[in-house]
């Protein structure tokens, strides 16, 4: 099993390897970052704010004189975890609904599509604002908001795929065999949607990272003293004028994380496709 994964990793193109390396790096940071961080995430350790790089503080200090490296290492897990969980939730629920619509016929499809239109047409950040105001900010709510925002997009793509696949002969064969809709959706249709859905997952992941940072701009992010990467950028934005590391470091972190995820997924999709043909 491990050998298999290793082999597949070796077979990836260069961009895929780079993506894999970045993803592994950020996963490791998300998992072990809080343990390895040199200072507690909320500790005021530097006398000066927006310090530059130094031996004590590798990435300088933030707007309150906290250690940027520590905050980055602790914050990565929120971005990685939230975005991954929300993207996963959005993808699975969007796909599940799309499958329901594809095998359920117009009676299911029509109301679902109206519901999705509704979700997609309310601006997501404003929607988040209302929900946070109504229910209070929590990780769970953030997760739900991000997921709900991106369900319709996934639904559209998954539905188009599933409707096409539902016309395939093997689905007809399964129907003629007397299979139930659930089996058809799960066993016959779903496995053939995985690659495009993975690519979509990658893009949703990026969008969710972006949405989370957008929400942090509106003051709706993770609870302090913790902060996701977007919040780290946001809270240090006043350091931008002086080119503070406190803002550059999390911005670079976001970019490498999202680009890495997508490079990897592109590469997997590519090699997967090659195999299928």
């Amino acid at each position, binding site marked *: 099993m491990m050998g298999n994964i290793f082999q597949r990793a070796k077979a990836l193109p260069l961009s895929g390897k780079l993506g894999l390396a970045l993803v592994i790096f950020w996963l490791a940071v998300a998992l072990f970052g809080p343990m390895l961080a040199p200072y*507690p995430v*909320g500790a005021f350790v530097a006398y000066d704010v927006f310090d530059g790089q130094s031996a004590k503080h590798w990435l300088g200090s933030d707007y309150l004189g906290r250690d940027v490296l520590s905050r980055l290492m602790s914050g990565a897990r929120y971005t990685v975890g939230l975005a991954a969980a929300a993207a996963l939730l959005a993808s699975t629920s969007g796909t599940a609904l799309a499958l329901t619509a594809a095998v359920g016929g117009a009676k299911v499809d029509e109301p679902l599509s109206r519901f999705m239109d509704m979700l997609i047409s309310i601006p997501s950040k404003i929607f988040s604002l209302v929900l946070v105001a109504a229910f209070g900010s929590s990780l769970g709510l953030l997760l739900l908001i991000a997921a709900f925002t991106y369900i319709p997009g996934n639904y559209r793509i998954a539905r188009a795929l599933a409707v096409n696949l539902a016309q395939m002969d093997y689905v007809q064969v399964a129907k003629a065999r007397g299979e139930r809709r659930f089996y058809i959706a799960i066993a016959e249709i779903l496995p053939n949607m995985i690659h495009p859905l993975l690519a979509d997952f990658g893009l949703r992941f990026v969008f969710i990272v972006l949405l989370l940072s957008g929400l942090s701009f509106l*003051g*709706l992010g993770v*609870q*302090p003293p913790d902060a996701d990467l977007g919040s780290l950028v946001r809270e240090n934005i006043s350091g931008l004028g002086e080119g503070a590391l406190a803002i550059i470091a999390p911005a670079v972190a976001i970019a490498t994380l999202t680009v890495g995820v997508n490079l990897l997924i592109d590469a997997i999709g590519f090699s997967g496709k090659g195999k299928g043909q």
Partner: protein
Amino acid sequence: MTDILSPYSRRGLIGAGLGVGAGLLLPDSAMSASRPRRGGRIRAAGMTASTADTLDPAKGANSSDYIRHYMFYSLLTQLDRNLIPQLELAERIESSDQINWHIRLRKGITFHDGATLTAQDVVWTLMRHKNPATGSKMAQIAEQFAQIRATSKQDVFIRLTGPNADLPAILAQTHFGILREGTSDFRTANGTGPFLCAQFRPGVRTLARRNPNFWKPGKPYLDEIELISIPDETSRVNALLSGDVHIILAVNPRSSKRIHASPRHNLMVTPSGLHTNLIMRQDRLPTGNPHFVAAIKYLFDRPLIKRALFRGYATIANDHPIPPFHPYYRADLPQRGLDLDKARWHLQRAGLKGTRLPIYASPAAEGSVDMASVLQEYGSRIGLNLAVNRVPADGYWSTHWMKHPMGFGNTNPRPTADLMFSLFYKSDAAWNESGWKNPRFDRLLVEARGEANQAKRKQLYGEMQELVRDYCGVSIPVFINLIDAHDRRLKGMYPIAIGGMMGYQFAEHVWWEG
């Protein structure tokens, strides 16, 4: 920290106390350098923009409203740079018993529509605050107006429900801006102020043109002021630095470095009684435990807050709401500081080691989120597990404020010590934030209000400060300085401690040297 959703503060603006000494000026004392001159057009940026923006002075809810109202309306009195009420539309204000007041108006003052100001206008303006339908922010204060009537075309008689020597200071609040009798349409402004309202688009902009018939000769100096709002602080500072606006309100201390670095701009710092305070509800546990309260008060690293949160633009406070520059400030009270040992001891006495407590903070209360982070950090060192619960500014005051065992409030300065204590610390006050009940304090409050002797009064207020400091469930770590910034060519600026931009009154006083 600034948030587009948060009005600067939801508390009504109230002028500060009486007779405050000078000494608040910054090195850039424009007064000496230049003579006032006419002309010029500037753009000013406030910090709140909303469709709720209003031209009705009674409804003024935020700094942008106050600035706007000062441009278009005049008041009976106005606080000067020493926070002493000066006569404006009133020529004379007199009372022998502090209950019955007589006000004589200046002659020949005209509204923007050409009508002449009469006593009837003043009576109508003041009385409308008592009508709930007006929605006045001063409704509570106006309750003490027992009777107001015009005794002649120039004379107004006011009878209060009880003695109050502070009436002139109370009338200096923008909400009491004088309207023409019967005004009901607030799509434009019809006042007696220094500027005419050329355009008013709520949430977008206000365009003010010089009032050529303003009753103060020579004033105002500027031809036109465009007042806009830029809620995002970074954007506001950038707009100033890029020359798009000429004066901005409410600069974050963190941006002060950038403005200092600009040769074209000046900072104006206004020390004030504004503070963000921690509330520990006395009617709830564990915050009702006096040892817990004491522990928390020892846990604030005030110099750190002053330095890190406010970059030094703050005054260290002593857990009571009277700032050091206030005449009734009690200087001999020992300053409380960070003392982890004492905090730990109190916490042990409270028997609360290891408990987890949520602490509610919001961008609505300036600096509270970071203060909570500071508190949490130090709490963790003595085995106190505080969980910061940041909630959005939107709805904070109605949903969270005073509703949790631990949360933050944010209080603007009040014109008198009496008002500050009566509104926030009296046992039965609606905004008794911590819900503490101290009969001695309540007695002192009544006594001080009736006391004519200034020295005696100072002593009474001093004891009240001590009581609040030691027993009240409110902790005030620092008073926050107000920071504005403006183009160097804008002259005539000086701080007035009741608010930014010269206590929101800059429009009348400044001139452009471009």
